[in-house]
């Protein structure tokens, strides 16, 4: 187990470093003239050159990378080109708001998705399974932003039940806070739910058709016990991996959903930064989002190591 943990930690460090290099290189391949962007269209080449020198763009790439990375580690994410403010505070704020969406969605997906998958597996071949199967088919067949629009159309425009855009902090009241969250979270949940439910179903079916379950039944154990203690325990182990993978899709979903709902989170900020080629903001946002994904994967891996007895107790007794 210790070896497993160490191995994972080392991987994470390596990956984050590799990612930062990739992000840096990619963003520096921009053909745009960053200096011209900042100074505006009336700037002269001399002013641009001066600014470039000030920003360090004329230095060799590895050195620039080093500056950038060391600043990042200290929490200094540079200055946004467009907003002319330090990036770090705006970014953390936006991250916080996105986190609310993400965590709420993951909570719903984990519980509801697993439950649906298990129900579909236990009643496989009968109507709950077919119903779930059809629902999930539709769920995965459309991207999140489409569902977002449909939900807006239904709840906001037609029935005027919920606000269609924006965000309200807790200071504006819990009701307002929650009402702004419902639609975006529901949108995020829909597509992921389908994915998780399907995969949980198949791993649960595999567990239910395994030899050890048959043996448990042959020992006269009641079905409920067999399902919960024997089958479910084994089926949930791979579900952890599925949920981790879904976190990656979630991040993608957040970008689209925040755009549809004009939710002021990190995803929307990233899209804006990309459109306006605001370099420091872009780099920081991508790195942070990817870092979050990395951590989520690490957590999932560690959780998997704890839950899977083969990893937790490696050796053999004899």
């Amino acid at each position, binding site marked *: 187990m*210790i*070896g*497993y943990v*160490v*191995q994972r930690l*080392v991987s994470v460090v390596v990956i984050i470093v590799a990612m930062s290099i990739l992000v840096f290189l990619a963003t520096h391949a921009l053909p745009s003239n960053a200096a011209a962007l900042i100074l505006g269209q009336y700037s002269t080449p001399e002013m641009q050159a001066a600014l470039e020198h000030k920003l360090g763009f004329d230095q060799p790439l590895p050195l620039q990378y080093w500056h950038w990375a060391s600043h990042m580690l200290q929490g200094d994410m540079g200055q946004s080109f467009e907003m002319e403010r330090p990036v770090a505070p705006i970014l953390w704020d936006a991250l916080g708001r996105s986190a609310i969406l993400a965590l709420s969605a993951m909570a719903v997906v984990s519980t509801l998705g697993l439950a649906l998958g298990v129900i579909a597996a236990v009643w496989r071949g009968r109507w709950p399974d077919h119903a779930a199967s059809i629902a999930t088919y539709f769920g995965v067949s459309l991207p999140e932003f489409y569902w977002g629009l449909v939900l807006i159309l239904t709840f906001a425009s037609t029935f005027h039940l919920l606000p269609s855009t924006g965000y309200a902090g807790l200071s504006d009241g819990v009701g307002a806070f929650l009402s702004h969250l419902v639609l975006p979270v529901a949108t995020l949940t829909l597509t992921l739910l389908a994915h998780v439910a399907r995969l949980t179903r198949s791993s649960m079916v595999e567990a239910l058709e*395994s*030899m*050890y*379950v*048959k*043996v*448990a*039944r*042959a*020992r*006269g*154990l*009641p079905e409920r*016990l067999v399902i919960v*203690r*024997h089958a479910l*325990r*084994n089926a949930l*182990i791979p579900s952890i991996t599925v949920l981790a993978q879904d976190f990656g899709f979630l991040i993608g979903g957040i970008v689209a959903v925040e755009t549809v709902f004009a939710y002021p989170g990190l995803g929307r900020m990233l899209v804006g930064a990309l459109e306006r080629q605001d370099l420091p903001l872009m780099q920081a946002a991508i790195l942070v989002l990817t870092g979050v994904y990395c951590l989520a994967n690490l957590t999932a891996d560690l959780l998997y190591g704890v839950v*899977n*007895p*083969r990893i937790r*107790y*490696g*050796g*053999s*007794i*004899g």
Partner: protein
Amino acid sequence: MNTQSRPRTEPLLEIRNLTIRYREGDRHVTAVRDVSFSLKPDGALAIVGESGSGKSSVAGAILDFLGPASEITGTILFEGQNLAELTPVQRRNILGRRIGAVFQDPFTALNPALRVGRQIAEPMVQHLGLTLADALGRAEAALREMGIDRTAEVARAYPHQLSGGMKQRALIAAALACEPPLLILDEPTTALDVTVEAQILRLLSRLRADKGIALLFISHNLGVVRRLCDDVAVMYASQLVEFGNVRHVLEQPAHPYSKGLLASRPPLAATSRNSRLAAIDGQMPISAEPDAGCVFAPRCPFREPSCSAGPQPLTIIPGGRTVRCWKAGEVGPWPRQQVTAAAPPTFHRGDALVNATRLSKTFDASRGLTDWRLSVTGGRPQVYRRPSRVPAVNDVSFSISPGEVLGLVGESGCGKSTLGRLLLQLLRQSGGSVEFDGADLARLPAQALSPFRKQAQIVFQNVGSSLNPRLSVGEALDRPLALFSLAKPRDRTRRVEALLDMVRLPAAYRTRFPHQLSGGERQRVAIARALATEPRFIVCDEPVSALDVSVQATIVNLLADLRDAFGLSYLFISHDLAVVAQLSDRVAVMYRGRICEIGTAAEVLAPPHHPYTQMLLTSAADDEPVTGPAVSDIGHGARTGCVFAARCPHKLGTVCDTTPPPLRTPSTTHAIACHLDTLPDTAVPPVRADPYPQRAAI
């Protein structure tokens, strides 16, 4: 203890006219047809048959294992109750409480996510109303009864941490947790090594004597059955063909199929090169039509036209046996195979074809960070690396002459498969050398390996995966011909047909795919593929271990015929000493990477000299084995001493642990690695019951 008060003469389990059919798509397959038998409260009944005979389905029907696609008719009475008439709840209460079950594959029968002790305790909590703590305590006691010493550790362990033998013991403990009067065992030892199997059988025998449990033992292994059971029922193609006392049936079989089955087992003794096993031609039909006549008739050497006239009923012959053959009283022993006697070749060690010198192989699994271990000793944590592994093959030397068969016998994990692959350079050795026809293979340049590859081939054990499922038989056989340019394109078809003929398959099989062939047929194709390159040497890696006994005999005979016809040499690897003895001129016994003993078949087997050889022989024989100390399944071999020291019943003392055993050579062909001068208990070695008794033919 058994609290039932029913009289001991009424049967515990009674099966009447049991018929089981499976729906497969729109067809029906009858797996069991009109089977009846009964089992006394302290009896032990074996159901014996080959794969496809329906024996497992009988157990499945009692245990309600068969799934919704099955149709069961007939009566199953357990303790006087008709199981089909019970409600699901009542049925469930009987299972586990009154009937225990142990299955073939211990690796899949245990839940990998639950601790072993918990799984044993569960039925007790459920059926006996114990608390979990009490049940776990009893579970540990049960494990101790099974011969396990570190019961607390084992109970807390997860299944993947235990060896196969341990797992099976735990499963037996779980089956007996509620002390049921009936224990059903479906091939419980088939997946285990022969020495482990012997221990489990001893255990079952003791449990039966101590607790008075009734056993229903399903197996294809007649020897195993003889040791444990009172009565035996022989099944063939869904029908019961013979039933009677186990010793009577095994010594004087009445039904031709029983005779053939018994005759096809190789005797546990060295045999001449000219002998062939008695074999049953053809194979068991998948869907039998018993109304048209005796199902076995097509394969029966005693058949007459009246055998196929109509259904064959069960008759009772003198001695209380039932047989489904009207000729049972008149038929003689199963015909022997006759082979023209040829002068056996003499082998000179000087002209070796294959020469292995001090071969070693250590697998260095890619060691990453998972090798680090954390231990807290004396309150201070330490990080250290896991010590490297013991070599799979350790300083092995031998030679094989042209036309000679060297048998290599040992249990799983001893390194015999690795050794076979080293000889063919499918693996690179860590030390030592392999010479073929005088040339050191490791020194050959890459181009020169191709002629070697043509002359040295391999046949594998696993018939399911040794043929590419996407290639037809013809394509698979054509490829070696094309690769080595052994025939012009237009001649290749004829060559392929000739190869099929050599292995006694019809030419029409060229267009078939592996999934359309039976296990025995696939193995023949694999042999044909090996022969396609016209080799001089073939490594046979457990080629018959996955096959039924009667099919085994035909393949062994085929290998012997091919050897004679083409002057082939083999390295014949197997865990089955009898099969090895049948085919081999010399035998090497391997344990944990080292050769313990090597010599001619006669020298090694009778009498056995090395303690491990003796252990293998007695485990394989039908009589009660020499009792050794209670051993754990995985011995931790000492580094410097004898590899067998930890398990040796004749261990001398610390010398066996510290000093490598010397090589004793009682003759020029015989070598033994042991500290002992002579082995005690070298009485006349146990030999399998002779299928051709001197007594009057039945």
